């Protein structure tokens, strides 16, 4: 699977949703959580440097030895982070995935009976569908 981790982080840098794929690998999960946490600094840097970027998609935040981390910042200061282990992946595809994740997130937020970060099988299924559509 090219996409290894997807995360949604709230306005106060609180994690709302974070999921690693494939789910069986527990040992990599903590490492990916740390990578996502570090990417928040990179996002803040990008915001300061670019003086309010015009596009929501921030592009490649920082590469590590085996992963590449992409960021997306919404108008409501929600950060979406995608970690991929596929170096040859085109940025446009990832941009599409993050936009779709944004749509799924907006639909979930508009549900008055559900607030992230609760567990929801439906939400996780929709996100999983996004990830598996990348194959």
């Amino acid at each position, binding site marked *: 699977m090219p996409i290894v981790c997807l995360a949604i982080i709230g*306005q106060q840098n609180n994690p709302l949703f974070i999921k690693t794929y494939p789910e069986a690998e527990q040992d990599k999960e903590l490492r990916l959580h740390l990578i996502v946490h570090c990417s928040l600094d990179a996002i803040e840097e990008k915001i300061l440097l670019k003086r*309010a*970027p*015009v*596009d*929501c998609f921030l592009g490649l935040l920082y590469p590590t030895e085996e992963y590449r981390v992409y960021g997306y*910042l*919404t*108008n*409501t*200061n*929600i950060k979406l982070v995608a970690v991929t282990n596929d170096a040859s992946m085109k940025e446009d595809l990832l941009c599409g995935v993050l936009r779709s994740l*944004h*749509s799924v*997130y*907006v*639909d979930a*937020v*508009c*549900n*008055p*009976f559900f607030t992230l970060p609760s567990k929801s099988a439906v939400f996780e299924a929709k996100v999983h569908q996004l990830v598996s559509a990348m194959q």
Partner: protein
Amino acid sequence: MHARMQGLSIQPQHQGGNVSQTTFNPKKRCADVCMELLLLESVHLYKNRGAPAASAALEAIGMRVGKQLAERYTKDRPRLGETLEVIKFLCKDFWLLVFKKQVDNLRTNHKGVYVLTDNNFRWLSRSPPISSAGGDPSQEEALREVALQHLHLPCGILRGAMIQLGVPCTVEADHKLSPPACAFTIRLS
């Protein structure tokens, strides 16, 4: 008599009930009059529970709805920069999507206070105008009070939207104007 309204996605949380959500899908429509009746009834419901709870409850509902609307309506837009751009978004696009028109007048004192004036506020279109009181000041005051009760929810919506867009503030409605005109004062905190 049903007005056709396309693509309004508002879900006011109402005592366990849930209005069916219409998204930006042209096939799903909701009659405008349903919305108006719901707004009138929600004010009526909370009024019957006692005065202090009504304004707070309606503002709380408005805050939640405003946050959700802000998420949905800013989804495909380029990033908004500073506070003034957020206010402009509120006055033009947001007002158009929620209240079907744009704000008529925006004033600021450049110290964090913005006054948005709408000369024909849609949600007050059913309120009797002040002139129908026939010049009687106590009746006029009563009419203004009624109009004010209906403005708690829009104030909450604006406040929720602003907070979600990263601008903490308080929103007050000015009931000195004659309905259906009204002014909202946004004070940045």
